[in-house]
């Protein structure tokens, strides 16, 4: 008995024959090779099983003839053994491999952001009109001093403070270097190799125009990005791809990647097929070899070891801010406390919904905790321990809209990072096939005929528009809250209320239920 496969196709490609002008553009556009163009009958013939529902053909069909339908094959209903699970079992029975997926956890867990509501001013303490009033969106990320030493010029009293109005004060404390963001939205790390160079170019250009930061991910920084390096955070992960002293010097800050929301506890693995010449030059590894970046840094087994790497990077970069990226997991508050005590200037919390990265399905869907919980517990823990000033909190992994940014900041984050949303702005249709390297939109692939589809200037303008729009929306939210600076919203959980959350979750979030 030999079947090719039990697995039915997920989608059906439906072509309206009357509308089809037989141009063959669908076949030309599809990165998954769904279509073969029948030269005799002059019509495209789809192989439904290959369709990822990425809508590239739909968008580019001049006749508007294509629609993609769900392949609604009936399975005997079971609340336990869903068709998705049955198909996964078949696939693994056929291959014996670990199932891969991409684009973050899509399971129907509680979305806490959607159960948090923001406050607004009415009558007293009136709201502020963001159309007329300036709204301060600028944010500084980095370590703030524990205390300030001030010297007075001229005569001083016993405390060193000038008693006269004419005396001027000088700040003696050497402030740590900060990252200056013109909007509290930055871009999360996505490596060149996983995404295309044009994605990196787009994000670098967008970050420069927006006055924020893009993050190289762990795959090194291509030479084309050098003009934008003041707005680039370079990442250093366990595989050390592309890391040398000039790379570290190039970035505005360095991020140590311990974990990522897409796959907490799992390392990176870029298959050899994706390592073409340019990727190999940027990662500084030979073409065609697997790029293995295991979960543990083999030089970090303790907070002291992490501290050693943080300070090695500081020594190597002239004391630039060092960010440490961790996935949100059960003991995230204690872990974050250790990371901050290790000397991190920024702690990047990546929630379990996040992740553009390819990931084993079992990890993506079952490991980690929501970023909302992590922000609240980490912020509280650092406050309780009196070390909140030592590091800024960046929240990522499930930031889908400006409201999420506002809520994350109200929960205690200093800024948010987006990955998926930025890719969607550039054409990503969240088909979750990032790991295949066939991305028809030229985002998550290295095939030159596909990557050339993303024009970096267009990509940058899309992302700039998105972040401008979100920033305007944040200004509206601030106005409604009656404050005129993002700083005034930070950690202001009193301005949040929970709706439909249980008491324990509300306590953990430090948020009152709606009505109180």
């Amino acid at each position, binding site marked *: 008995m030999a079947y090719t496969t039990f697995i039915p196709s997920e989608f059906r490609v439906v072509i309206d024959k009357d509308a089809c002008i037989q141009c063959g553009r669908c076949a030309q556009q599809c990165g998954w090779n769904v279509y073969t163009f029948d030269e005799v009958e002059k019509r495209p013939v789809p192989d439904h099983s290959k369709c990822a529902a990425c809508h590239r053909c739909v968008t580019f069909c001049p006749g508007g003839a294509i629609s993609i339908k769900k392949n609604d094959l009936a399975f005997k209903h079971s609340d336990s053994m869903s068709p998705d699970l049955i198909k996964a079992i078949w696939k*693994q029975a056929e291959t014996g491999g670990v199932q891969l997926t991409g684009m973050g956890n899509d399971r129907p867990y509680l979305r806490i952001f959607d159960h948090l509501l923001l406050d607004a001013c009415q009558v007293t303490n009136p709201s502020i009109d963001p159309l007329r009033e300036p709204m301060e969106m600028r944010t500084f990320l980095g370590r703030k001093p524990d205390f300030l030493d001030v010297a007075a010029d001229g005569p001083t009293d016993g405390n060193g403070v000038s008693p006269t109005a004419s005396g001027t004060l000088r700040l003696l404390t050497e402030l740590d270097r900060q990252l200056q963001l013109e909007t509290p939205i930055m871009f999360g790390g996505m490596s060149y190799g996983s995404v295309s160079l044009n994605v990196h170019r787009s994000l670098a250009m967008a970050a420069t125009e927006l006055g924020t930061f893009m993050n190289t991910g762990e795959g090194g920084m291509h030479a084309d990005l050098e003009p934008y390096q003041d707005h680039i955070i370079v990442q250093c992960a366990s595989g050390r791809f592309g*890391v040398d002293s000039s790379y570290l010097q190039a970035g505005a800050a360095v991020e140590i990647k311990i974990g990522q929301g897409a796959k907490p506890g799992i390392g990176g693995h870029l298959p050899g097929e994706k390592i073409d010449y340019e990727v190999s030059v940027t990662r500084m590894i030979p073409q065609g070899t*697997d790029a293995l970046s295991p979960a543990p840094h083999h030089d970090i087994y303790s907070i002291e070891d992490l501290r050693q790497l943080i300070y090695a990077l500081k020594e190597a970069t002239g004391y630039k801010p060092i960010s440490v990226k961790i996935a949100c997991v059960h003991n995230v508050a204690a872990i974050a406390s250790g990371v901050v005590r290790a000397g991190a200037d920024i702690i990047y919390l990546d929630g379990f919904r996040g992740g553009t990265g390819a990931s084993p399905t079992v990890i993506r869907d079952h490991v980690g905790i929501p970023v909302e919980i992590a922000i609240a517990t980490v912020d509280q823990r650092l406050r309780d321990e009196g070390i909140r000033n030592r590091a800024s909190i960046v929240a990522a992994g499930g930031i889908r809209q400006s409201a999420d940014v506002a809520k994350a900041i109200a929960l205690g984050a200093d800024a948010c990072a987006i990955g998926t949303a930025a890719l969607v702005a550039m054409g990503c249709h969240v088909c979750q096939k990032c790991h295949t390297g066939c991305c028809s939109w030229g985002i998550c692939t290295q095939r030159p005929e596909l990557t050339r589809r993303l024009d970096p200037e267009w990509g940058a303008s899309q992302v700039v528009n998105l972040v401008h729009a979100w920033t305007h929306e944040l200004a509206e939210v601030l106005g409604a809250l009656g404050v005129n600076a993002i700083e005034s919203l930070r950690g202001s959980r009193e301005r949040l209320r929970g709706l439909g959350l249980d008491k324990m979750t509300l306590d953990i979030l430090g948020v009152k239920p709606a009505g109180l």
Partner: protein
Amino acid sequence: MIGQGQEERAAAPDSAVVRNVPTGPARKGPTGIEPARITAGQPGTTRGTASRKGARVVIDGKGVYYKTLNEQIREEIERGATEVVLDNIIGQRYIGTGLAFPGVTVTVNGVPGNDLAAFMNGPTLVVNENAQDGVANTMNSGLVVIKGDAGDVLGYGMRGGSVYVRGNVGYRVGIHMKAFENRQPLIVVGGHARDFLGEYMAGGEIVVLGLGPSGGPVVGSYVGTGMHAGVMYIRGAVDEHQLGKEVRATEPTETDQARIRDIVADYCRVMGMAPEEVLQEPFVKIYPYTSRPYGRRYVY
């Protein structure tokens, strides 16, 4: 040139000696975790503008905080010093870290702390005694010479240059080492190496000579686990059970033998040893059998 003429040069007229005032107890933050930043004008920092062009500079490291010490090293080199000698070093970390000055020699007298020569790019760094963990972490180019033993995780992610150790090394040495085009990292260990040598190695060369008092096998267990590029040459015997799943052991070819002779010759020149004696014992070559060890693990 390494290891020669240092005594003569100590008396050279262009020498400069930097004396440090001990910083005393560092001021700590409210939680006592870390000393406050050393600001200009505080004791412990020596600032000058005189040219040190081509000079040999001696820095007394006694009681000097590592950050100050490394600032001084950088400053002396930026002022033109081509040789910096550090005396009385006791555990200061990050010596030579991020140092990117080819043609400069830094000599360490005493035992330096962790992450010596991390991200280093170009200089020659000589340690006359033992070194600790994390030597040459992600080093890019240059030469590190350790006259004594070195600790764990030496040469992590190293992508160029050479590290020569006279004595033994600890665990996880040379892991994630990577080669690319003209950047070919090399680690030569005179003594023995412990477990996980060359784990996840993705390029470059590791040579272990097994010289000195024997404390068991030349290399530990799990040699080359996850290794997918590069090569190791081990002088003496390596048992099958010591190897990681992704590597095989074989006899070196003629080309390998020539390469071993070159490596040993340079190592012995630097260490002041006789290469003939080292080359008397046969070597074992350890190599990965695939560049894609985990290629079949995943389904798409």
